[in-house]
């Protein structure tokens, strides 16, 4: 072995060592920056609050293209979380992507319910809030047709709305939406009616505290929070990783309390009776039958969803009566399927193509 070949073999190793030393130094410097700097801004796409009814906020995002599709989109956010997960930051925002692709986007986002809003029932969401917003979107846009897009529990509410108002919408899109609640095994176990006294919780607490909801989600993957901190340390040198981590961490910590009666209804009707899947759910005096949904429907589920497993979400497309319906399983988790870098490569182009064909 001559001197030249020894040098060529040791060069990559030396380069690697140099890289690791640089990263270690960067970790120390950035670690101080991390502690000293405020959390990054989120939800920055320009928007206007066009309607507010207690816990409900209806936002209209300002269009970002010269011409827009005829049919506006109404996003129904999950009641447990803030809607800015779909509008994290420029370049990492589903909302911004849709605006730039020529869609007119509205979002039903939620504030923490006030103490007096503990009386809000499940049907207030499906038969009052969503219909009011659909009507407002129609009036504002001058269009009869509206696409409703629901995320997680927002998908449950949207599906129920679509089933009970067959003429109410033009397209239905759902992300990671549970229908068969018997398949949400850990939540089922924790909400076992033999042990879980939901009446006592709601009667005592009024609205269900955000901390209880947050811990419930966190307990599904108890080791992951600690591991997240390790990953953060490992990637402290990487500004993009740190920025993204902080935005998602902030969003996770921003879990919302739930209106007491809404939580009681959800527990009894969906978790205990599994009434939506069994076709026995009754709201506002009518039975909810998902087969009455006949509009084009798209359901996007995540391959590694630890909150809503495939067995729980799969029945949505099977149950609805539309001819034009599609279930798409994408790589990712419950959140990363809709927000973040992998969503921008997988879900967003698919959604754009699906919506474009049905929005003019």
């Amino acid at each position, binding site marked *: 072995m001559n001197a030249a070949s020894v040098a060529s073999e040791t060069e*990559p*190793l030396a380069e690697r060592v140099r890289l690791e030393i640089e990263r270690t130094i960067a970790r120390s410097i950035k670690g101080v920056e991390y502690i000293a700097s405020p959390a990054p801004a989120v939800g920055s796409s320009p928007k206007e609050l066009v309607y507010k009814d207690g816990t409900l906020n209806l936002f209209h995002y300002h269009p970002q293209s010269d011409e*827009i599709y*005829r049919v506006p989109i109404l996003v129904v956010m999950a009641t447990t979380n803030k809607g800015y997960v779909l509008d994290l930051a420029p370049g990492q925002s589903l909302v911004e992507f849709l605006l730039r692709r020529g869609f007119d986007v509205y979002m039903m986002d939620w504030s923490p319910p006030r103490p007096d809003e503990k009386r809000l029932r499940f049907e207030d969401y499906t038969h009052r809030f969503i219909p009011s917003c659909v009507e407002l979107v129609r009036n504002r*846009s001058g269009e009869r047709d509206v696409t409703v897009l629901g995320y997680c529990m927002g998908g449950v509410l949207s599906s129920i709305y679509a089933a009970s108002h067959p003429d109410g919408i033009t397209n239905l899109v759902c992300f990671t939406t549970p229908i068969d609640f018997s398949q949400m095994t850990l939540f089922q176990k924790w909400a076992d009616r033999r*042990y*879980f006294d939901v009446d006592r919780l709601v009667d005592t*607490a009024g609205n269900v505290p955000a901390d209880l909801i947050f811990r419930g989600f966190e307990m599904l993957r108890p080791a992951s929070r600690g591991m997240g901190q390790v990953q953060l340390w490992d990637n402290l040198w990487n500004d993009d990783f740190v920025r993204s981590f902080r935005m998602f961490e902030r969003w996770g910590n921003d879990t919302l309390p739930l209106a007491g009666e809404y939580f009681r209804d959800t527990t009894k009707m969906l978790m205990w009776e599994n009434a939506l899947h069994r076709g026995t759910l009754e709201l506002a005096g009518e039975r909810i039958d998902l087969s009455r949904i006949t509009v084009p429907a798209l359901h996007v589920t995540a391959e590694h969803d630890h909150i809503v497993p495939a067995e729980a979400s799969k029945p949505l497309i099977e149950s609805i009566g539309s001819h034009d319906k599609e279930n798409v399983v994408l790589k990712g988790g419950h959140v990363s399927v809709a927000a973040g870098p992998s969503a921008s490569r997988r879900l967003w182009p698919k959604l754009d193509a699906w919506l474009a064909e049905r929005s003019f």
Partner: protein
Amino acid sequence: MADKAAPDPLAPWRELLSQWEKSANSLANRGMGTDGFSGSMNQAMNVLLTGQQSLGEAMVKYLAALNLPSRADLLTLGEQLGAIETQLASIARILERQNAPAAPPLELPPRTKRPPRAPQ
């Protein structure tokens, strides 16, 4: 291109941590998916709620004895204030519409966009 040429010395550590996370989550889920865990967790919550309820009731009596409003009284007051605020806001909106020129609505682009492959 050193990243490709030289092995990452921390890669085994990362892999180990990833495996540990999966195993720990799986193990914890098995433990938390039992009747025993659910019973204990809900029992603990019931104890907490009972304590909260008893404390709340005692505080109501104590505050009443001191002739002070309880939390429920303040919440009722808050509800009434909220209702008054809502009514005031709607009156203000009506007055604004009557007295001031309407703010220009958001300029929306034409709704003429079509998908790339759609027939014109």
